[in-house]
């Protein structure tokens, strides 16, 4: 074989390989396209229709895959605004997200700083704080429900789980218990990545430990704070299992711990109010997208640069 035909042969093989490569990812792309984008489109479409019973939902579909039902515009969304349950959900979500994200970030940072202060038995501490992440929220919820139920009847007289004004805190505590170790791991990775020379230099210049933390360490950890906050907000927005297990659906007492995801589930799968459920789901997606998309764009730009 001459050198030229060999090169041609290789070129053709490389071309065939490139086609194989594309073919390998096609199934995944198609699956994501359908299961993410088409489904989102259908949910949004359904939220603009008036589908309120199983018969309609299971009936013939239009070419878009939507039930053939009357277009009602934003009626489902306006109904939500008028719903006591949904209004309670929005308030609960705001309270829950703020306190859960705030508590998990500060507790996670505190744990990371403590462990990074060269505590002995580092592995033991780290594992104690981190292991809840390996658990299902159903497990977490089952145990914390019993902790708070028992506390409310026992000698403690801590009635939080049955007290409408305090019940949300039981969910916040359980969620923070589950997630703060994760934040700790993120911060710990960040702290270990900061070169000690920077601290030494500041120390030589006479900076106190508190100043070093505030002026050097904390600003350097800022990207981690942003990632962790994104992650926690995302978890908060879709919180479902934990409340479902701890205080039921609707999240009680009353609607004291109810959340949009629970309302979405009950409206859709228990009351057959499909379009209303779809409207809640669409709102959840919009809020998630507002938070996540800018972050995704920025972090993607960074990866490309690197």
């Amino acid at each position: 074989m001459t050198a030229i035909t060999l090169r041609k042969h290789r070129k053709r093989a490389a071309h065939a390989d490139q086609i194989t490569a594309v073919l390998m990812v096609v199934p995944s792309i198609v699956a994501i396209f359908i299961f993410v984008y088409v489904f989102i489109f259908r949910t949004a479409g359904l939220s603009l229709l008036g589908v309120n019973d199983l018969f309609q939902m299971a009936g013939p579909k239009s070419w878009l895959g939507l039930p053939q039902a009357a277009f009602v515009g934003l009626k489902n969304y306006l109904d939500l605004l008028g719903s006591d349950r949904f209004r309670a959900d929005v308030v609960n979500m705001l309270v829950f997200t703020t306190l859960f994200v705030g508590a998990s970030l500060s507790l996670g940072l505190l744990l990371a700083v403590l462990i990074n202060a060269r505590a002995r038995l580092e592995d033991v501490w780290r594992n104690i704080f981190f292991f809840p992440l390996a658990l299902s929220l159903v497990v977490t919820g089952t145990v914390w429900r019993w902790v708070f139920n028992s506390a409310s009847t026992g000698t403690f007289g801590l009635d939080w789980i049955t007290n409408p004004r305090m019940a949300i805190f039981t969910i916040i505590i359980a969620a923070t218990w589950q997630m703060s170790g994760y934040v700790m791991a993120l911060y710990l990775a960040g702290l270990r990545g900061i070169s000690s020379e920077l601290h030494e230099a500041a120390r030589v210049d006479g900076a106190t430990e508190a100043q070093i933390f505030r002026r050097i360490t904390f600003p350097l950890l800022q990207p981690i704070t942003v990632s962790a906050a994104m992650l926690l907000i995302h978890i908060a927005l879709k919180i479902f299992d934990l409340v479902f297990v701890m205080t039921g659906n609707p999240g009680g007492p009353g609607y004291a711990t109810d959340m949009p995801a629970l309302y979405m589930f009950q409206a859709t799968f228990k009351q057959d109010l499909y379009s209303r459920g779809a409207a809640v789901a669409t709102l959840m997606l919009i809020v998630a997208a507002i938070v996540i998309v800018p972050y995704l764009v920025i972090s993607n730009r960074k990866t490309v640069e690197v």
Partner: protein
Amino acid sequence: MIGATQILAKQPSKKRILPWGWVVLYALLLTLAAFYLIPVYVALNTSFKSFEEVSKTNAFDLVRAPSGSAYLEAFRGLQKGLLNSLAMAIPATLISSLLGSLNGYVLAKWKFRGADTLFPAILFGMFIPYQAILIPLFQFMSDIKLAGSIWALILVHVVYGIPITSLIFRNFYATVPSSLLEASKLDGASFFGIYRHILFPLSTSSFVVVLIWQFTNIWNDFLFAVTLTSPATQPVTVVLQGLGAGQISHYEIQMAGAIVAALPTLLIYIVLGRYFVQGALAGSVKG
């Protein structure tokens, strides 16, 4: 056990932290550890009580007459759910990991036009609240006659696992020098040859990370499980949620059940914790 005095006696000599700094450090660590261990204590403690003892004492009173009967009850109740969870999580974990590895290989080393815009579009799937796809998903599963079967859950976990598994593998394969691939291409290695003989063997630890992360998440899922299954195919999370409930709550069975249901992922964490942490970090820190 190491007591507080022992810890203090053995303090490493570090000039910048004053002696009382160590007291504060360990006091804080112990207090926080107590908070994290409350549910562990309560769950273990209650799980060894009998029904009579649970109703007479509170969750914090130490068990007086330990018995394993709650575990027997819990295991009996959860048995089917545990098997369903295994039948769902094992295939879904294996398939989604393999798929993610192939995707990662292509997206890192066989970049085609548009690959860099496609990737964030795939990643987006990992950030959506699944409520936004739940109704059409349920409809779709009914249409293809999979609703209520374990296959529906396998399919769902494979598909929604694509973003995270592809991300982890892509990031790993991107660190493998391209010159290595070019050299073997010149030696006539094909697309699959390079994967099988170079990248796949190199990525053992990535596989461990992805397998563990996927298994844990799939095992722990509740939303898809409660939406897409029938009573016969419910995974352990759904069964646990209803365990020991009824006219009278059997908290000892619930606690034993929670421990049994948590054991598989907890054991994985205990044995392979390092890889589990890597998976957790991979999901949030990119680039």
